[in-house]
C-alpha cells in the first residue's frame, strides 16, 4: 500500500512517522511513499493530523519516531531550512508572510534563497536584477504583479493566499506541499490557484502533496488520495475507490458536512 505507483524511485518516503505530544499521538506510524509526477491529496477530518504530518515532513516539528526520506536520503535529523534547500517547498495553511515587507520582496527573498545568495554581504541587493525579474515572473503567475509594491499585510486575504503560493513557486522545489491553498478564498479566486497546481502537475516531474477539504477539488486534481484519521493512515488509493470506501464514508465524509 505504501509502494510508489510507478516503478520509479519515490521522491518522498515516510516510514512509521510518529509524533507524540504528551500522551496524545498526533501522527501514528504513518508509512507512505510519493513518486515523481504524482499529486496526492491528503484528506481527513479536522484534527486528523494532516498539518502535523506536513510539519513532520518539512521539518517544522521533529518526529518522536520514524524517518523521512527525500530522494532516498534520510533527512529526519535535518532542520527545516536544510530540507528546503534539498528541494522541499511548503505553503502554509495559516497565511505566513513577511507582513511589513513588500509583496515583491516576499517573493524575492524566496528566489534569493533558492539562488543561495543569502550570505552575500558586499553587493547591493537591487543590483541582482535577475532575482528581481524572477520574483516578478512568479508574481505574474499568481496574478499579483500589479500589487508588487504593496506591503504584504495590506493585501486582501485571497491575495495573501496567492502570495503564499508565489513564495512556494519561487523556491522551485521538487516537492510541493500545499496546505489548504484555497481556504477562505472567494469563488472567483480559487481557479487561479487550481490552475497553477494543474500546471505544476503537468510539468510531470514534480511531486505534489495537497491537503484539501473541498472534495470537488480533490477529485479534479488528485491521482491518489490518502486518508488520515486520528493520526493514522486509514486509506490509500485511487480517488474514486477511496472516496467510495466505507471507512472514508464513515470517518470523514460522513462526519464532515462541510465541503
Amino acid at each position, binding site marked *: 500500500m505504501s509502494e510508489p505507483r510507478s516503478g520509479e524511485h519515490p521522491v518522498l518516503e515516510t516510514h512509521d512517522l510518529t509524533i507524540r505530544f504528551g500522551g496524545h499521538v498526533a501522527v501514528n506510524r504513518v508509512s507512505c511513499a510519493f513518486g515523481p509526477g504524482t499529486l496526492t491529496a491528503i484528506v481527513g477530518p479536522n484534527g486528523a493530523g494532516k498539518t502535523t504530518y506536513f510539519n513532520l515532513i518539512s521539518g517544522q516539528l521533529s518526529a518522536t519516531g520514524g524517518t523521512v526520506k527525500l530522494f532516498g536520503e534520510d533527512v529526519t535529523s535535518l532542520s527545516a531550512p536544510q530540507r528546503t534547500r534539498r528541494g522541499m517547498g511548503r505553503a*502554509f495553511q495559516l497565511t505566513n508572510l513577511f507582513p511589513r515587507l513588500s509583496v515583491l520582496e516576499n517573493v524575492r527573498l524566496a528566489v534569493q534563497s533558492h539562488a543561495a545568495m543569502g550570505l552575500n554581504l558586499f553587493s*547591493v541587493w537591487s543590483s541582482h536584477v535577475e532575482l528581481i525579474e524572477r520574483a516578478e515572473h512568479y508574481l505574474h503567475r499568481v496574478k499579483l504583479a500589479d500589487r508588487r509594491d504593496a506591503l504584504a499585510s495590506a493585501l486582501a486575504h485571497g491575495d495573501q493566499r496567492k502570495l503564499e503560493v508565489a513564495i512556494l513557486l519561487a523556491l522551485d522545489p521538487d516537492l510541493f506541499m500545499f496546505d489548504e491553498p484555497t481556504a477562505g478564498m472567494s469563488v472567483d479566486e480559487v481557479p487561479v490557484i487550481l490552475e497553477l497546481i494543474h500546471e505544476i502537475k503537468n510539468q510531470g516531474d514534480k511531486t505534489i502533496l495537497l491537503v484539501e477539504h473541498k472534495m470537488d477539488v480533490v477529485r479534479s486534481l488528485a491521482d491518489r488520495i490518502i486518508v488520515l484519521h486520528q493520526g493514522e493512515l486509514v486509506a490509500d488509493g485511487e480517488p474514486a475507490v477511496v472516496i467510495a470506501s466505507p471507512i472514508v464514508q464513515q470517518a470523514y465524509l460522513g462526519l464532515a458536512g462541510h465541503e
Partner: protein
Amino acid sequence: MQRLLSGDYPRSRVLGIVLVLILAGLALAPFVFPGTRSLNVAAKICVFILLVASYDLLLGYTGIVSFAHTMFFGLGAYGIGIAATRLGPTWSGLAVGSLAALALSALLSLAIGLLSLRVKTIFFAMITLAVASFFAILASQLSWLTGGEDGLTYKLPELLLPGTKLLEAPLLGVVISGRIVSYYIVFAGALCLFLALLRVVNSPFGRVLQAIRENDFRAEAIGYRSVVYRSAANCLSALAATAAGILYAVWLRYVGPDTTLSLDIMIDILLMVVIGGMGTLYGAVIGATLFVIAQNYLQDLMKLASDAAAGIPLLPSLVHPDRWLLWLGILFVLSVYHFPAGIVGRLRGNK
C-alpha cells in the same frame, strides 16, 4: 554616489539636507567650529554615529535586543589603552591592541551568539546583560591591567599628540596639530565603517536579516537558517562597535569604565537608536548627533534662558542649568511619543 550609499537614499528632501549638513559640519569641524570643546563634541558624534549604527544592525534590522554592545565598545577602547600602556606609544602597539580587541570581540560575540541566539529574545537580552556586567566588573577589578575605576591615561604616537605641529603656519586660522590629525582619523574611520554597514544592511544578507526580524519561522521555511544569520549579524555588529571603541580611545587618550563600559552608555545608545529611527542607519546619524549635542550644550542653552528670564517668578529656577537632565528626559519622552518611528521614519512619512 549610488555605489557609495548602496542604493539607500534618504528618500526625503529634509532628511537629505540634514544629512549633508551633518556630514559637512563634521568634515570641516576643526575649521568651522574651532576650539577644544567643540572638537571634542564633533569627535564624540563621529564615534557614536558608528556605535549607534552598529547597534541598529542588531536592534532595528535583525530584531535582536542586546545589552552587551558597550562591552564590545569597551573591548576596543581597552585594547588601545592597554596596548599603549604596555607596549608604549608606537604604531605597531596600536595595531596589536586593535587586532587583539577585534579578534577577542569576534570570538566572544560568536560564542554568545551560538550559545544563546537560539533562545527567545528576552533570554538573549538577559544573557548579554549578565556577560556585559561581568566584563564591567572585571575591568574595575583587574586594576593592574586596566587601571580599575580610574582607568588608563596613555600616550599615543607623536603624530597624534596635541603638541605636534604639522604645518609651520596656521591653515585658515587653525593650527594644524596632532589633534587635528587624530580628529580626521576618527572622522574617516567612522565614515568608512558607516558606509560599510550601509552596504551590509542593503546586501542580500541584510535583506535576510529583515526577513528574520519580520517572521523568523517563515524565513526558516524558505531556507534561511536564522541562527546562522543572527550570529553573523551579532558578530558584525560587535566588530563595528569594537572599531568605534578603538577610534574613541585614540581620540580621548584615556579609557575607563565610565567612558565605555557603563550601562548608562548602553541606555544612551538605545535612546539614540529609538529617537533617530530604528531599522534605518540614517536614524543613527540623526539620533547620535542630536543626543550628543543636547548632552553637551543643553546646559548652556538653559543658562541663557535662565538669565534671560531673570525677574520672572518660578521660570528662572525651572530652566536653571542644574535641571538639564529633567529637560533632556522630557525631550525624550516627547520624541518617543510623537515620533514612534523615529525622526527618520517621521521625515519619510511613515506613520
